[in-house]
């Protein structure tokens, strides 16, 4: 069965108040059980090892992973487990569409979460790309372009590039006859230099008459 069919089935059942209240309960507790196990297996930890990190007995971890257990985890317990895995915990009210999504998207891989240390490079990269986008946006505006908002730019950005301490340069010019903004990011080189490499291409709306281009250049790194 595909996810859409399962979701459609649950939606029909959820039109009954008692069912959707019950599904909400099962989604919270059943989801937590499954995710604790998924996170533990992702880290190749035994229940005893997780117990030691969370300062809990192995038997308690076993209960936490069992959706049929009578004892339900408290918020404090979930925070301790989050700390043991070094991940965040997000407790919030959500629309039922989210409950349906989470009830049907149960693949174990989708439950895995990186620890803070593992995620850190990606967080920094994303922030760097966002800073580059803002700079490109501002440069575009100062060059007379009427890019309506930052989200327009986001749609076109190539986000696979790795970036470190990026500096974005946007200049007037033409590039391959296209009406584009080329985003360049600075990559640190040996001997303390930066090389600007193209990492993103923003295609402007058809109405835009101007094109922007940044040539490759080198700057002294850290100055």
């Amino acid at each position, binding site marked *: *069965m*595909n*996810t859409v*069919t*399962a979701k459609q*089935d*649950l939606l*029909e*059942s959820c039109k*009954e108040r*008692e*069912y959707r209240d*019950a*599904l909400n*309960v*099962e*989604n919270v507790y*059943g989801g937590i059980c*499954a995710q604790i196990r998924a996170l533990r297996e992702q880290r190749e930890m035994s229940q005893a090892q997780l117990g030691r990190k969370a300062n809990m007995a192995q038997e308690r971890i076993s209960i936490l992973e*069992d*959706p*049929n257990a009578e004892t339900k985890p408290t918020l404090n317990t979930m925070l301790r487990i989050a700390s043991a895995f070094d991940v965040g915990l997000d407790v919030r009210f959500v629309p039922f569409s989210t409950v349906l999504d989470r*009830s*049907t*998207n*149960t*693949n*174990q891989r*989708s439950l895995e979460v990186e620890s803070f240390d593992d995620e850190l490079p990606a967080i920094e990269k994303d922030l760097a790309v966002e800073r580059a986008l803002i700079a490109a946006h501002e440069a575009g505006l100062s060059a007379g372009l009427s890019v309506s908002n930052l989200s327009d730019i986001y749609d076109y950005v190539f986000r696979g590039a790795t970036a470190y301490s990026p500096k974005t340069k946007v200049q007037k010019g033409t590039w391959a006859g296209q009406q584009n903004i080329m985003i360049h990011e600075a990559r640190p080189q040996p001997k303390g230099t930066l090389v600007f490499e193209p990492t993103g291409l923003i295609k402007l709306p058809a109405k835009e008459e101007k094109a922007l281009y940044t040539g490759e250049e080198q700057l002294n790194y850290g100055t």
Partner: protein
Amino acid sequence: MDEWTFLDYLDERNTNPIQEWLRDRTRVPVKAKAKIDRILLQLAGTRLWVRPLASNLDNHPGIVEIRVRWMNTQYRLLGFRGPTERQFTLLFPALEHGDQFDPQNAPEIAQRRMAIVQNDWSRACEHRYR
């Protein structure tokens, strides 16, 4: 989802005893139904099933029980992995009191049904969550 697809056994009249049982509120209250649905969906997304949620039945080769506890009732969904890869066919729904199935011959019924489905794949249909 994706790892496993659940199927329901169909009897000789092409009726679905699994769905009939799940829709019978006197046997499966609506809150228990929600829990069964959620656990089946969870298992559908889990490649390797482990105890206590699922386990092979001793003395009944091929039969797997899925365990769902709601309030003080122990539901046992008996089934088997098949008829094709990454499919699990629900064969017979039972209860457990103490160490006894209710009905007591639930594993034997499940084994008979397993043989039927293995010989005739049209005797199973896709499981639905409604």
